């Protein structure tokens, strides 16, 4: 027993020695980046990380005379994993600022986490659920890229007025981001006089949409599709195979370049499809060309042009750098100065607009109404139809009225 006792004490002592940590001197800024680096969204998440890294590379890896250390953590699209990643960054790596996350529900989770971690400033990556800032906002959680509803600005009006679609059916995934996108589309579309008789909320990862395809009412003029990745490919393929010929209106990630680059006869359905997005990969603007060139030279292994994720993580990184520069790296008093400077920040975005925050710490953005077109080589791309400037979170509507619509859900909004 005594031998055993000694052994245990020894093991315990070694363990304690291993566990104790040296306290680091604060002569550098630590920034954590959370993105999805595993599972189906991994390649998108990697592009998000590239965006953030690009911002810091352009700044020479320094801000306000201090070194910037970047620590990347992976989540897996689940709110739980995003929170775990953030906890590790906060408690273990002692980061000052967190950039991320990528997807809707993760953003809501980090906003809640931020409330209990006032010593850290959270800058959202590309997560676009409305509620992350609009309801129950947190004063150390900032979002420069806007939400999924803002990303649809202009589309509803365009569909009703320019394309003359009187009735539209909705097919969308069943979680917070598509809810927000549908809200963005419908709030304009319904106000313009359009009707949405039927909404299909399908579980994410649904493979077989055939029964949804056949349930779409015959009398609608178009289908608003807010599906991402494989879901979009599957739905469109099956719709095409079933002989479907209604025009498509795309959600922001439905007309993503990765889907336009996928192979299959379904693509002809997409030609001419309008969509809303804050990021157009082959936008002709000067700032965007510079941004793309910088992206390509820094990441030759990256995508052929920056995705919406790279774009938004880049803006987050840029905002952080500008804010830190303004306050000269002063993070005292729970980042009070930095927060104030972020709230008042104005800078030129890669799409040439001016980024600034509203009172909910949510970006007022420039949004594009785009159209899928066939390039000369037969591949598909997006071209800009319309630029909608200064889109705020209430889509230009009266804030009180907008808020009265209530939190987005499967049933809300509704205009059958």
């Amino acid at each position, binding site marked *: *027993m005594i031998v*055993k*006792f000694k052994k*245990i004490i020894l093991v*315990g002592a070694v363990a*304690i020695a291993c*566990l*104790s*940590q040296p306290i680091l001197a604060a002569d550098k800024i630590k920034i954590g980046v959370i993105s999805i*680096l*595993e599972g189906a969204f*991994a390649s998108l998440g990697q592009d998000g990380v590239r965006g953030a890294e690009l911002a810091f590379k352009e700044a020479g890896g320094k801000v306000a005379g201090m070194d910037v250390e970047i620590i*990347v*953590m*992976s989540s*897996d699209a*689940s*709110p*739980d*994993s995003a*929170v*775990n990643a953030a*906890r*590790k960054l906060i*408690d*273990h790596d002692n980061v000052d600022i967190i950039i991320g996350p990528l997807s*809707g*529900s993760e953003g*809501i*989770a980090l906003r*809640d*986490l931020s*409330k*209990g971690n006032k010593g850290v400033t959270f800058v959202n990556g590309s997560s676009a*659920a409305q509620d992350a800032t609009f309801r*129950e906002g947190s004063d150390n959680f900032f979002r420069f890229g806007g939400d999924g509803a803002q990303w649809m600005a202009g589309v509803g009006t365009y569909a009703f007025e320019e394309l003359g679609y009187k009735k539209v059916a909705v097919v969308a995934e*069943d*979680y*917070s981001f598509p809810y927000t996108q549908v809200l963005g589309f419908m709030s304009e579309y319904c106000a313009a006089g359009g009707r949405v008789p039927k909404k299909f909320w399908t*579980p*994410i990862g649904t493979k077989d949409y055939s029964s949804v395809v056949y349930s779409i009412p015959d009398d609608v003029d178009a289908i608003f599709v807010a599906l991402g990745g494989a879901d979009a490919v599957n739905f469109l393929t099956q719709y095409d195979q079933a002989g479907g010929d209604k025009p498509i209106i795309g959600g922001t990630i439905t007309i993503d370049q990765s889907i336009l680059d996928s192979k299959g006869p379904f693509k002809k359905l997409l030609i001419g499809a309008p969509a809303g997005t804050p990021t157009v990969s082959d936008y002709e603007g000067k700032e965007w060309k510079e941004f793309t060139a910088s992206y390509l030279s820094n990441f030759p292994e990256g995508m052929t042009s920056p995705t919406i994720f790279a774009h938004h993580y880049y803006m987050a990184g840029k905002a952080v750098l500008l804010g830190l520069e303004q306050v000269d790296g002063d993070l005292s008093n729970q980042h009070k100065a930095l927060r104030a400077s972020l709230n008042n920040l104005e800078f030129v975005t890669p799409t040439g607009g001016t980024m600034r925050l509203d009172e909910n710490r949510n970006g007022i953005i420039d949004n594009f109404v785009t159209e899928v077109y066939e390039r000369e080589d037969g591949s598909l791309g997006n071209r800009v139809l319309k630029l909608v400037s200064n889109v705020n979170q209430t889509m230009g509507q009266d804030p009180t009225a907008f808020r009265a619509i209530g*939190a987005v*859900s*499967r049933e809300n909004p509704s205009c059958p």
Partner: protein
Amino acid sequence: MSRTLLLIVVILIILPAFISDFWLNQILTRSIILGIAALSLTFLTTYLGVVSFAQITLAGVAGYTIAYFSPNTTGLGIELPWLFAVALALLFSTLAGAFVGAIAKKSVGIYSIMITLAISMAFFYFTRQNYSIFNGWTGFSGITAPVAFGVSLEDSLVFYYATLLSATAAGYLVVKFTSSPLGLAVQGVKDAARRVRAIGIPTTPVIIAAYAFSGFIAGMSGVLNVWQQERISSFSVGLGPTIDLLIIAVIGGMRHPLGAFIGAITYVLIDTFVIDLFSRDRFNMIIGLVLLFIVMAAPQGILGSFLSAQKRIRKYDNNAIKRKIKNDCEI
């Protein structure tokens, strides 16, 4: 072993004085919570002889109950005094355990694996799709640990001790349960179910009781988990955590309640630091390889291998010591 256990507990009590908050929250506390969940699995495996994939589901039932009946930022649910919420959570997880037992009562071996896996997936999809109780994909967030008897469980040190106390209680309950007549009957069912009936004890209630008890233990972990994570969602009851729990139980070894906790700390360390040591992209491969290695090389898990190695060494000592060790190893 009981003396060793005592020592471990003493070390765990003084440990917080030496470690950072991160180690306390994210490594120790999280390990112990996972360990309690794994204990509910190793209990079933060791004493009833079935492998249940439904333990995360049972923990989830308790977790969702706490979320629903506590203040949260979701706008769903009813606020109850925390003691009521905890009592309800444990009641529901126990009942859910009984339900799983009632469905899986006739199944052993791989059949029990498949059936419990299917049940847990049904629950997972249900939570993901249902918004009126479970708030779907997003789940509940902003749940905070209560102030219990004047101290706030939100304080990480207090919470750590509460967790440690719960783990000790869970271990004690398991030991007590297994030596009660019902616990003996559970072990009897594992060895020879027909004989249990032939001494006048119906096996169905015994099996259901074992699952219900495991539900209670899993529920303890579910409650603590929600308080620590401050959130719960369909992901918390998905296939990932379900398989993780099995990995934990296997790594630690299923022969002794302590194995669950050894497996948990090992898993948490890998989970937390592999991303630092190796490429973050290949994290799952590392986990898979570790699991493969342990299953192939040390089927009794870390604790099991340690115990049998210890036995091999002591074989050469005199008989008295041998007997002592034998007793030690079997609590």
